[in-house]
């Protein structure tokens, strides 16, 4: 059986304690993963300042160049898995069809390849050399930055590899990484590390610690800055710690108002993509659509489109829905959805399809799309997220927007109403605002996403110096 070791400052360590991730189709153990005990993590973190010092020895430009090389290695090289072996491994333990894994690979490689653009977007600095000197000038004003910690600990999810693009720039920001991979998606962070190392980044700046929840907590507790991907409960547990950037459910949305609501048909492709791309697993997938027009008519049309999505084989280049690695989870999620349906919340997609939401194909269990027409914005199903192609369609009064939306990672607003634009721009609960026909799935990497990694890792200080000291 394949084995993934712990990486302790880059050095492989095979633990006595192991966990196994099973193949989603056969349910047989597919990979054995070394598990780090809590004390081992604590002990290793005592040396994190040494890793930070190693990265400080590089210039930002050197690290950007290495990220560029890493991009190619990640996409094309044996690390030691071949790209195809990697695709099949991710698919085996997460259920994602190969085409979706490849799409996520492209996304990660894209971020690595365009690291300079990413950093320019995150820092908004005119010259990235300022990250090396710690000071500089912008428009004649002195600027100075300092790292807020020696390292960043990241608790990673298993749902989709694309999220790894969020922490990958930390290396170019001279921040060592201590990663706790998701239990069924250990592959991508491991491969990114291997790609970086092959590109010249010292292995000593990477920690890779598959571990328990307690071990994960130790990673977050013991590192200067942290990033957590998790469910509502996990997000709540760490919500009060300003050192930790929380990536919980996205509750991403599309709103249609006035002219947008009236011409909804032309946005149907955009809505389908926002809901169903990546099998609905991403936090940027749209989970609810809010319209001032006829919600029922829109929901019916969307249901007819999404009902066409059917399970196919893992190597189908047009695969549009992924099986769940654990069939019981699929049944539990579907039961949860059903328990909240009533006369005011109806799954139109199930009606159009004429079959159950839970489907079995070639021995694998799928959650097929649901389009819930919800008649009231107060209904419990109006604003939910389930990790499969699920969307609620809700009719609202123009005056309800945007305060009825609540926390929203991505909001695509389909309207020319400039007053509504202003209200959306002023809304503090929207993380990313798309004005116009832009899929919620489309991410521009020169923009901060769910928090600004640079602001998370660096802080600005006041700075003054006599000219002879700074030249």
């Amino acid at each position: 059986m394949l084995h993934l070791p712990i990486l302790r400052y880059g050095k492989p360590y095979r633990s006595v304690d192991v966990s196994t991730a099973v193949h989603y189709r056969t349910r047989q153990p597919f990979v054995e993963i070394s598990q780090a005990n809590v004390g081992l993590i604590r002990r290793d973190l005592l040396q994190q300042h040494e890793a930070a010092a190693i990265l400080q020895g590089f210039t930002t430009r050197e690290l950007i160049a290495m990220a560029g090389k890493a991009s190619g290695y990640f996409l094309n090289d044996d690390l030691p898995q071949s790209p195809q072996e990697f695709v099949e491994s991710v698919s085996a333990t997460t259920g994602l069809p190969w085409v979706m894994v490849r799409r996520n690979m492209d996304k990660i490689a894209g971020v690595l390849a365009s690291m300079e653009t990413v950093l320019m977007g995150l820092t908004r600095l005119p010259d990235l050399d300022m990250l090396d000197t710690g000071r500089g000038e912008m428009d004649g004003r002195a600027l100075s930055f300092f790292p807020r910690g020696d390292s960043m600990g990241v608790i990673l999810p298993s749902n989709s590899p694309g999220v790894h693009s969020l922490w990958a720039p930390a290396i170019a920001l001279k921040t060592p990484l201590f990663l706790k991979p998701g239990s069924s998606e250990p592959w991508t962070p491991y491969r990114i590390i291997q790609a970086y190392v092959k590109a010249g980044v010292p292995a000593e700046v990477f920690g890779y610690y598959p571990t328990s929840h307690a071990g994960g907590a130790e990673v977050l507790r013991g590192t200067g800055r942290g990033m957590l991907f998790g469910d509502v409960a996990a997000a709540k547990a760490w919500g009060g710690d300003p050192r930790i950037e929380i990536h919980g459910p996205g509750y991403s949305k599309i709103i249609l108002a006035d002219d947008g609501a009236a011409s909804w048909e032309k946005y149907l492709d955009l809505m389908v993509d926002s809901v169903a791309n990546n099998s609905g697993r991403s936090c940027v997938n749209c989970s609810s659509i809010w319209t001032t027009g006829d919600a029922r008519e829109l929901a019916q049309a969307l249901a007819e489109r999404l009902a066409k999505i059917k399970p196919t084989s893992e190597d189908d280049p047009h695969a549009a829905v992924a099986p769940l690695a654990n069939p019981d989870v699929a049944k539990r999620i579907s039961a949860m959805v059903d328990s909240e349906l009533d006369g005011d919340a109806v799954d139109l997609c199930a009606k159009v399809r004429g079959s159950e939401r839970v489907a079995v194909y070639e021995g694998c269990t799928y959650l097929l799309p649901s389009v819930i027409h919800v008649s009231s914005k107060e209904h419990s199903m109006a604003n939910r997220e389930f990790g499969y192609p699920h969307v609620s369609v809700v009719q609202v009064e123009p005056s309800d927007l945007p305060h009825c939306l609540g926390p929203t990672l991505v909001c695509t607003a389909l309207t020319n109403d400039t007053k509504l634009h202003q209200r959306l721009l002023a809304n503090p609960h929207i993380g990313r605002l798309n004005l116009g026909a832009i899929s919620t799935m489309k991410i521009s990497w020169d923009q901060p996403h769910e928090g600004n990694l640079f602001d998370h890792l660096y802080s600005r200080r006041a700075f003054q110096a006599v000219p002879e000291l700074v030249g």
Partner: protein
Amino acid sequence: MSTATQPDLFARVNANKERLDAHVREIVQWHFNPETGCPFWLNWSQEAGWDPRTAVNCYEDLEKFGNFSDDELRGGPVSRWIPKGLAQRPAYVFETGGSTGLPKSRVQMDDFRIDYENFSETLPDESFPKGSDWLMLGPSGPRRLRLAVEHLAQHRGGIAFSVDLDPRWVIKLIKRGQLQEAELYKQHCINQALTILRSHEVKCMFTTPKLLEALCEKINLEKAGIKGVFCGGTEMTPQFHRFAVEELLGPNVYFAPTYGNTLMGLATHRAPEPEDNWAIIYYPPCPRAMLEVVDFDDATKIVGYGETGRVRLTTLTKETFIPRFLERDECEREAPCDQYPWDGVRNVRPFSRFQKSVVEGVY
């Protein structure tokens, strides 16, 4: 590794079984004799309507008692547990950790001394030198461990230094989500230990796994003069075992993992073999206490060697008789070996089927 298939070991296993059966008869006679038994068991016998003195002739006959309910050990009066035959002896009352609700109590006179004197025989003198002083970095308060380790040190000719450590406070902090406070309390305990280690010549110590990790973050125990560490109190995984030996202590400090509690006493570890892959294998202090591994769904059925089940404890001393008590732990059943010709337990860990999780803090 020796196994029960070897003829000489078979003979020793059989001889031990005879010794155990004789011990069972002696203990049952004592506890159910109206002149020497304790009020609890004498009343129990009356209510049950049978006399164990005539019905129990061997260890297996203890099955007739059914499983002992730990609720019987909660609350007072604790004098119900004092055997009449020992009524004139000064008594101590010790409590279990208190991780879950009302703590269980055990009244003792000399058992903790006897158990730890027996345990002392298993410690190598070169790593726990006679006459050396000890550090007891573990729970204080109403726990047996505190006095027992002190007695161990005294028995071996040394003095034990100890710290203030209230594990129940830590558990409260963790349950409230005040993890930072719990961490600070742990550091408070570690600082007490560091003060002792830096100001006295201490060569041996007892501590728990978490406290050992925390202490080794601050000090190199070998350089501090420590030669042997006796560790217990909470779960130890094989990975922790390896980590402790390879990284926390190094090759020159002896690591003695133990499994024990207030009700049993102390199960000692068998010297590790390479093929064990760092598994921790314990043997109970037969015949004073026995450990068995029983089926999760049928506690009367002992599982096969190497199979997993729930730990079942039987305590058999003149001070305490507790037959068939189901512990909050599970493990694999281990075969007898040369050093211990009776059943052992491998890789003890919290019982996975319990819905209510046990909070283990610094202790």
